[in-house]
């Protein structure tokens, strides 16, 4: 798709750091991303994969070694001032807001930073504080808030200029279950009800699976996969099957099923594993019958993003490094 149709278009993005000993570290290598409007884009990967560096490059906080980043068609480095009005961000591992100011004063401050003032600013701040259910506590200093409330203020501050793009780097890190759920609901609401485009990095893969429309998995500075979430799950759903059979497995059958997981359960024996094609699936069914086993059911395994993540990242980690 044309980059103009994408809210975020990243092409050929690379970042290389030079260590004190002169060694070069390729944090991000030739990355291409295209995030459509209104999409919740999950940006996943193990620690050190290059997610935060990429987010910071999109925010204009880290200068890329090569490549281009456009937000709503605006080059982040060529048209910085305009591009910055398109982005709101909550960055990982920091407070993002002033704990010695009240929730209200934080919103007013960040509004001023984005060039807002007057009634439009105060109305927006009021709306946001009501949206995150902190209106009654608006005059309290943020330092007395719980971690979840502080994170809600940070998200509200990122939204103060009503930017079309929200970048959330580990927004649920360190939050308890309830607070994480509130933030998660807020993310969904922002995309579904307000049409915001959200880029979300998280290690909570169940959350990513629940809320993201599209998922890119990064490893060693490169994208391992970048697909709609349903497509990613379907791809693995087609490859993994479970067979419930009744009867006794002969040693011949066990050796024929090498590579498949076999376990006994109440219904008999459960055999599960990856099947590459439909032909292989039919062959296996015929083989099971030839061993005098009663085939009770065949089901594709409901895939789990965590397993897919581990599978893809492990596969990528086993590949040899190729110097660009």
């Amino acid at each position: 798709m044309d980059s103009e149709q994408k809210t975020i278009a990243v092409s050929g993005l690379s970042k290389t750091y030079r260590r004190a000993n002169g060694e070069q570290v390729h944090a991000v290598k030739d990355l291409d991303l295209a995030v459509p409007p209104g999409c919740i884009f999950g940006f996943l990967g193990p620690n050190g994969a290059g997610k935060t560096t990429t987010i910071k490059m999109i925010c204009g906080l880290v200068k890329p070694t090569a490549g281009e980043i456009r937000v709503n068609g605006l080059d982040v480095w060529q048209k910085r001032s305009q591009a910055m009005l398109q982005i709101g961000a909550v960055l990982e591992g920091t407070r993002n807001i002033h704990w010695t100011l009240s929730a209200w004063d934080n919103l007013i401050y960040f509004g001023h930073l984005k060039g807002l003032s007057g009634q439009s600013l105060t109305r927006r701040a009021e709306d946001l504080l009501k949206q995150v259910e902190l209106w009654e506590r608006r005059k309290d200093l943020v330092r007395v808030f719980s971690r979840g409330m502080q994170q809600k203020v940070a998200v509200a501050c990122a939204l103060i200029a009503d930017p079309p793009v929200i970048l959330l780097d580990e927004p649920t890190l360190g939050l308890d279950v309830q607070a994480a759920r509130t933030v998660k609901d807020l993310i969904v609401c922002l995309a579904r009800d307000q049409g915001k485009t959200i880029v979300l990095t998280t290690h909570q893969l169940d959350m990513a699976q629940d809320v993201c429309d599209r998922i890119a998995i990064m490893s060693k500075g490169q994208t391992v996969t970048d697909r709609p979430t349903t497509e990613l799950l379907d791809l693995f759903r087609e490859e993994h099957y479970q067979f419930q059979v009744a009867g006794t497995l002969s040693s011949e059958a066990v050796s024929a099923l090498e590579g498949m997981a076999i376990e006994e359960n109440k219904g008999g024996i459960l055999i599960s594993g990856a099947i590459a094609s439909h032909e292989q699936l039919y062959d296996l069914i015929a083989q099971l019958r030839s061993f005098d086993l009663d085939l009770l059911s065949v089901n594709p395994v409901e895939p789990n993003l965590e397993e897919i993540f581990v599978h893809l990242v492990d596969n990528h980690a086993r590949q040899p490094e190729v110097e660009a």
Partner: protein
Amino acid sequence: MRATLTALWGEVRKGLLISWTYKANMLVSILTLGFIFVGIAFFMGGGELDPERIASSLVGYLVWMYVVQAISDLTYGLRGEISAGTLEQLEMSPAPAGLLLIGRVITNFTITTLQVALMATVMRLLFNVRVSWRLEALPALLLTLVGVLGFGYLLAGTMLVFKQVESFSNLMNNALAFLNGTFLPVSAMPGWLAGISMSLPSTLGIVVIRGILLEGKTLADTWYEGSLGWLAVNAVLYLVVGIAVFWICERAAKNRGSLGQY
């Protein structure tokens, strides 16, 4: 332009609000500075307080307070913003971050003026130290602050790249107190030390302000005798060099990806 001014006002307002949160600390800090000044004045007067002699030191000391507050805020304050992650948010403003730092200096100017007024009043009431405060000294003070802003930019830029410059900032604050002519007149220093002293960002400001407040000179007098002109040159030089260093360091930090690291 309007958006930049709004962002600048946001910085000033934020600074004032945060300072109000720490009002007790500020009061203790002004008491501490007051005790230190009186202690040094006793020491220099051989155990006596001579109000006329103290007036000269007091003017220098009050100017030094402006300098110290500005430098501390552009180093310790900025360091605090880095660790809180708010510097990165500041950098995401459409207005240039370097320009927004001026907001911090304006906040400091306001707060330090209140502290200076308090200290001058206490000195007058307790020790009969009289200074004829005249608005004519304000342009000289502002010029001094321009130089200090430049010096602050230099330190702030260095902070973005090297992170731990607080010790250097402390060293500078103390060095300025003893080398900028607050307690020891520049004329009493050996030639080489006087040269260093005159090149510092606040010394010429103190000379000009003393001339106006204690010797009854006009701004025109200080211009004709050259001290105001040299102050202007000193201030502009510090500002230009400071902005250049800050700009280079900010770019270097973005290249290294170390802007938000501490």
